[in-house]
């Protein structure tokens, strides 16, 4: 079943760091800095989907935005087809931008309520000055058909659509410039389950048809499992585990990944007993714990976890984990 796709790296992220400075509370107080993304590295192969999963505030959305240049990058390298995004001139960047798009989480607030659906979809063509009016109209018709909307719905305003249809408009807008790479930032979180299935089906179809590469951001592990080839689990701004889909779900290594997986509410009742419960909340990213970030909620934490921050290492071929321990965890039955 292995498709003959050459494993060409489309996007390479190296040690990405994004920091947000907070307002000083007084002249003499220290400047506090939120380390939203703190040294994240991954590659995405062409035509594949990388899933970023984690709880709110773990930096998954910021990572996606940083790749597209929507927030400033403090450190690290972004290579798109081996070209460093930081070294590009404004004009080159503008051209490259056409090939990278985003689908936002909330289809209600990401559409201009005063524009018709058709105008929203052809807006990117206007911005990048592509085609004349007739060509743009043709492209819009094409896009509406592609995402499963009727042609005559172009003249309606966003409030006249349901949530699922609005997300279809957002997808059409993201596809308008024929991108290669799309950041899907929680594209189905705001939708009802029945509609969620429609949108996921649509995204998978489009990916096959148009050979798209996705960075798929979600907090929902079931959704991630359904669409992603490779998955990176984030916690407090870093990746704690990264593996392909089968390895991550069948053989999770990091205690956080395990807890996350076992916290998912499933329809079957057999999981109720063997659940790992995490205590407390995610620590504040301004004063993150010393050493391992997860140690405050981890049941395996030892002295070394306080002193030293674990690095992301390849523990099995293709299976990366940032944890000091390897064997002790597997012995302890969890």
């Amino acid at each position, binding site marked *: 079943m292995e498709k003959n796709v050459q494993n060409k790296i489309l996007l390479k992220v190296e040690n990405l760091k994004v920091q947000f400075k907070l307002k000083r509370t007084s002249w003499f107080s220290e400047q506090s800095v939120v380390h939203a993304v703190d040294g994240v590295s991954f590659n995405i192969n062409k035509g594949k989907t990388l899933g970023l999963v984690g709880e709110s505030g773990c930096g998954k959305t910021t990572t996606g935005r940083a790749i597209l240049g929507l927030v400033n990058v403090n450190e690290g390298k972004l290579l798109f087809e081996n070209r460093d995004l930081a070294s590009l001139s404004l004009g080159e960047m503008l051209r490259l931008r056409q090939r990278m798009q985003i689908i936002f989480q909330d289809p209600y607030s990401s559409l201009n309520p005063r524009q018709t659906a058709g105008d929203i979809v052809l807006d990117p063509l206007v911005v990048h000055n592509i085609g004349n009016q007739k060509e743009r109209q043709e492209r819009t018709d094409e896009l509406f058909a592609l995402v499963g909307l009727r042609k005559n719905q172009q003249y309606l305003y966003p409030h006249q659509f349901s949530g699922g249809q609005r997300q279809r408009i957002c997808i059409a807008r993201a596809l308008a410039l024929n991108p290669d790479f799309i950041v899907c930032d929680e594209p189905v979180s705001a939708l009802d389950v029945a509609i969620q*299935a429609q949108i996921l089906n649509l995204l998978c179809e489009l990916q096959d048809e148009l050979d798209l590469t996705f960075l798929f951001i979600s907090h929902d592990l079931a959704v991630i499992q359904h669409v992603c080839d490779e998955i990176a689990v984030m916690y407090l701004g870093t990746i704690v585990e990264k593996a392909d889909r089968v390895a991550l779900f069948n053989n999770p290594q990091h205690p956080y990944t395990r807890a*996350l997986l076992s916290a998912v509410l499933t*329809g079957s009742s057999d999981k109720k007993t063997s659940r790992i*419960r995490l205590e407390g909340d995610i620590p504040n990213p301004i004063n993150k714990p010393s050493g391992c970030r997860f140690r405050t909620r981890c049941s395996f934490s030892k002295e070394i976890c306080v002193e030293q921050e674990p690095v992301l290492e390849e523990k099995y071929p293709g299976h990366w984990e940032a944890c000091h321990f390897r064997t002790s965890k597997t012995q302890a039955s969890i």
Partner: protein
Amino acid sequence: MISEATEFDPNNILTVKDLSVDFDVKGQSINILSKVNFGLKRGETVGIIGESGCGKSMTALALLRMVPSPPGKISNGEIFLNKKDIMSLSKREINRVRGREISMIFQEPMTALNPVYSIGNQLVETIQQHKPIDRASAMEEAIELLRSVQIPAPEKRISEYPYQLSGGMRQRIMIAMALVCNPQVLIADEPTTALDVTVQAQIFDLLKKIQNKNKTSIILITHDFGAVSEMADRVIVMYAGFKIEEGTLEEIRNSPIHPYTKGLLGSMLELKTDSAGFRERLPEIRGSVPDLLNRQAGCPFGPRCESATTRCLQMPPTFDLGDNRSVMCWLVENGEN
């Protein structure tokens, strides 16, 4: 075969009969809730599940007689809580019932808490509303309540403001507030929707603990079948203001009858242990939820239903299959399904 309105089961702490809610929009009356019947036993959890706009939250508001009026009103139906007719109570009497016998945990803990009062202030206000005690002892009780919902260092937290707390913590405060008078019925309206999975699991554990301790009956309103299977004994599936199916958790999960329930469960993603189903086409329910302003005649799910026939142009009655199992679909009539 056609269901009689639920008789007064003496085991039921709450009985809802033919509950309908209408909203007036621009002079037009929209039917939001249509003749919903159900009962709730002591210590039982009933999950109400459905897509947004199906009337699940409105059911909860109606039970507390908190339907925003105008434009809304309870146009029909009876609600009995502990044999007390909720519909006939005066404003003063209903205020005594709310919080004491039935109370509610709201969906959004950030908007449900007042941002300019401290947690302690808000809890004390609630306590003093219901109990004739002075402020100092109310404060003590508030600290005890916070401890019972497992908030660390409650003496310190009590003087903090909602913005200083995390989402999970705020939801715990909401639960504490709902528990002030040890109500017999607790309505939880999407209590974990705004929370992360690990925190969500903590909140459900807490609710179960409270239920075991106080024999509380819980109505859990959610769109997440995972949450329902975690908590509920019995499940009510709603669609466009109708109760379209009811049964025990096992019945709904393993042998759903209504095509909508089947579709809803089918389109749900579950974590799998094998690599099956990767990027496979998910079954979807075509179309979207009907416009309540222009209701069509016949079955509300008819236009989206794969098994619809001409018979579905007539409104199907609710077929009672005994033991609180009921389905609103013509398919059941001749025993086909």
